């Protein structure tokens, strides 16, 4: 009975913390996925570049919630990555 009550009480707390850890991992994973290909930017199609710029924009609000200085550093990295994709996109669209 005691074990059962403990399990009921602990489970929501555990899932809450796991949720936080999970969402942190999510932004990091997404960031890595988007920005690991900056050196291949020239080979991407216009659609692919647009998609990466959009993904950067979608990720920004999540990074803005991080604590300083992680927020400042990661936002700067995301901005550089986004700006490069946007730059190559503009170049390809002007061709």
């Amino acid at each position, binding site marked *: 009975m005691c074990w059962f009550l403990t399990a009921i009480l602990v489970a929501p707390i555990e899932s809450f913390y796991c949720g936080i850890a999970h969402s942190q991992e999510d932004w990091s994973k997404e*960031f*890595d996925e988007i*920005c*690991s*290909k*900056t*050196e*291949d*930017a*020239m*080979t991407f199609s216009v659609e692919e570049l647009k998609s990466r710029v959009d993904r950067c924009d979608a990720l920004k609000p999540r990074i803005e919630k991080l604590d*300083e*200085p*992680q927020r*400042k*550093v990661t936002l*700067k*990295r995301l901005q*550089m*990555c986004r*700006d*490069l994709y*946007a*730059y*190559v996109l*503009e*170049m390809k669209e*002007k061709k």
Partner: protein
Amino acid sequence: MVKETCLVGVLVLAIVGMTLAETGVKKKRPLPFEYGRVILNNYSEEAHLSPVVFDHWLHRSKFTCRLCHVDITFAMKTGSTGVKASDNMKGYYCGTCHNGKMVFQGTKIFESCSKKLQADDIKRCDRCHSLGKNVKREYDFAKFTERFPKERFGNGIDWEKSEAEGYIKPVDFLEGVSILRKKSLPVQKDFALTPKVEGMPEIIFSHKKHTVWNGCELCHPEIFRGVKKGATKYSMVEIMEGKYCGVCHSTVAFPLLDCQRCHTKPVQQ
């Protein structure tokens, strides 16, 4: 008599004026070990510490530009990052590596900043906060670079050749910080840029040479915004003012005095 006195007076003023004007614009050329030196004083003096003296030569011999300026996000303009001691303590900026834990080439890297200080720690603070102090450096420039291939200006070192000949192997990846990148695709080919001045050799720009240490996002679009080749006209005046190529090639990379390293292609007759 009055006329003569006035004339002498004007002549003296003119000579003094010209002398002052000349000394006023003269800039001291840094010595090889000083070239690329950055003084950081965002918060140091406020905290009763000497400003930080950062020597690029040591760090560039061990790490790529990209690692520090993209992954760790040090800005390209002196002081604009606004590094705080608390940032370093939390493991960002200098504290990314200078955390007292990281081992690099068999040596533990000293901790940059810490809250609790003991008497011995002052020497550690002085390793960076050293402006105006006579601090003995762990690495001596002349000894460290004695076997490196030489060049005429800047640090007096041909860094590119130093890497090609195996004297340096700049690290481009930091576990837990950098993103693992698969370098599978060839970079753009070298291209020529025609100078504005007639008779001046053409500039051969190598993307390969630049991306190997910088990646792409360090230069584009922050430094080079033009999307169409040849559309943006870069002038030497702007470059000398620290724009475009001058962001690096007047501060850390070989200086603008070394004309032939960019203006390499002879004029076609």
